[in-house]
């Protein structure tokens, strides 16, 4: 059995209450979004037992309900699921929390009550102002969803429930830093993470493959940082402050939860599970099959160490991480990159640089360096 990595990072258990999603975002990587199956109580109980009893996991940990639209199931699903997990935990007394990553369109007072009752942390996806958001985040009929998401945000804010936002950037978004910044400021959204449109799962095209994207992204980010400097404490960007910590303190042993076994555990509605990036649940490969590394109804979490798919994937992932450590200047900021980006871009894990690395990590770090130099260098003279 592998030694557990020494880490203070929390284990993330990504649970799929249902594969179904009520909307049809153009860049979504999930393949099964019309499937209305839900995770059964029997699966939830087995998952809870396997996770909470495990000595493979760092506690406290987080149950993140995602991999479909988590609010597409009835509220009573979570009342029951949370009770089951809580009851199982009576014998283990583990520390954990619940988190939901939602498209926000279905938030209503019933959900607000759930979030408050169980202290659920909420992550919500909105790509900025309507003319940007509605290009990609659409219904199956092709209509934009911005207005529905804003209704959800208003309900969260009225109830004083904190939430973080993930905004997916496409190459189109990069021409509108002022509009994106103003949108978040005007709507009181101060905790923002940018994901980029990337090749994942069933999403086979990437607007950032354009050769101009690297420089455009840097210009976009630099503009955003200067805009934010005039509104201190009103806008914090995950990509900046996470890299800032490494920049200020250094990081000789970088750690990336997406490429280390069992730091992220992805569990489908039927109990199938895998580790590494959640996006790999949408992958298919001649070599690795559907990336299923076990089933928590018919097997144990600990069986993963002997699972042939896991062994093949892990061996190749770790080769890729080692290559990153040897070859990449940005290693200390990154810890080896996300296996899903490597796989979806090249069909392999034992590679280094990806287009996503170039934009989301390298361009970001370069921009942060430039920004700090521009803000501080004149005062050093």
């Amino acid at each position, binding site marked *: 059995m592998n030694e557990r990595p020494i880490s203070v990072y929390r284990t993330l258990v990504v649970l799929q209450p249902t594969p179904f999603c009520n909307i049809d975002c153009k860049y979504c990587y999930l393949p099964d979004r019309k499937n209305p199956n839900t995770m059964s109580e029997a699966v939830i109980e087995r998952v809870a037992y396997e996770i909470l009893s495990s000595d493979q996991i760092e506690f406290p940990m987080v149950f993140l309900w995602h991999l479909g639209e988590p609010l597409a199931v009835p509220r009573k699903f979570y009342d029951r699921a949370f009770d089951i997990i809580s009851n199982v935990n009576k014998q283990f007394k583990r520390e954990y929390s619940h988190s939901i990553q939602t498209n926000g369109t279905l938030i209503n007072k019933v959900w607000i009550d759930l979030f408050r009752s169980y202290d659920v942390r909420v992550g919500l996806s909105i790509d900025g102002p309507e003319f940007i958001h509605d290009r990609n985040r659409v219904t199956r009929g092709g209509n934009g969803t911005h207005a529905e998401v804003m209704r959800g945000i208003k309900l969260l804010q009225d109830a004083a429930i904190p939430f973080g936002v993930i905004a997916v950037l496409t190459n189109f978004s990069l021409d509108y830093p002022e509009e994106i910044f103003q949108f978040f400021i005007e709507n009181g959204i101060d905790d923002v993470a940018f994901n980029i449109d990337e090749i994942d799962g069933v999403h086979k095209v990437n607007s950032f493959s354009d050769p101009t994207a690297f420089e455009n992204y840097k210009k976009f980010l630099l503009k955003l940082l200067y805009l934010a400097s005039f509104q201190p404490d009103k806008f914090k960007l*995950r990509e900046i402050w996470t890299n800032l910590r490494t920049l*200020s303190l250094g990081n000789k042993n970088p750690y990336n939860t997406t490429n280390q076994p069992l730091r992220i555990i992805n569990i489908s509605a039927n109990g199938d599970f895998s580790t590494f990036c959640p996006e790999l649940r949408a992958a298919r490969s001649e070599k690795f099959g559907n990336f299923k590394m076990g089933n928590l109804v018919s097997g144990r979490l600990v069986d993963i160490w002997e699972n042939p798919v896991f062994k093949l994937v892990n061996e190749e992932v770790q080769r890729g991480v080692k290559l990153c450590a040897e070859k990449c200047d940005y290693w200390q900021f990154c810890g080896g990159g996300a296996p899903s980006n490597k796989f979806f871009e090249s069909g392999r894990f034992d590679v280094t640089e990806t287009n996503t690395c170039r934009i989301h990590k390298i361009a970001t770090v370069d921009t942060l360096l430039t920004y700090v130099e521009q803000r*501080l260098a004149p005062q050093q003279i």
Partner: protein
Amino acid sequence: MTSTEPFNFCQRTENVRQMLMSSKNGRLLMQELAPANAVAIDNTIDFSDWSQWSQWSQQQ
């Protein structure tokens, strides 16, 4: 991947680190860029450590 920037990346990051850590303006800039306490949505961040870092940086 080697840096696309014009001079040695390690030297550049070290220079910027010194700017941030060795002056009051550097520490103020760090506080400007970082949240006092962040909301975890994807759990890739070690918030307990960040909190320690934040306290530490304010004490310097």
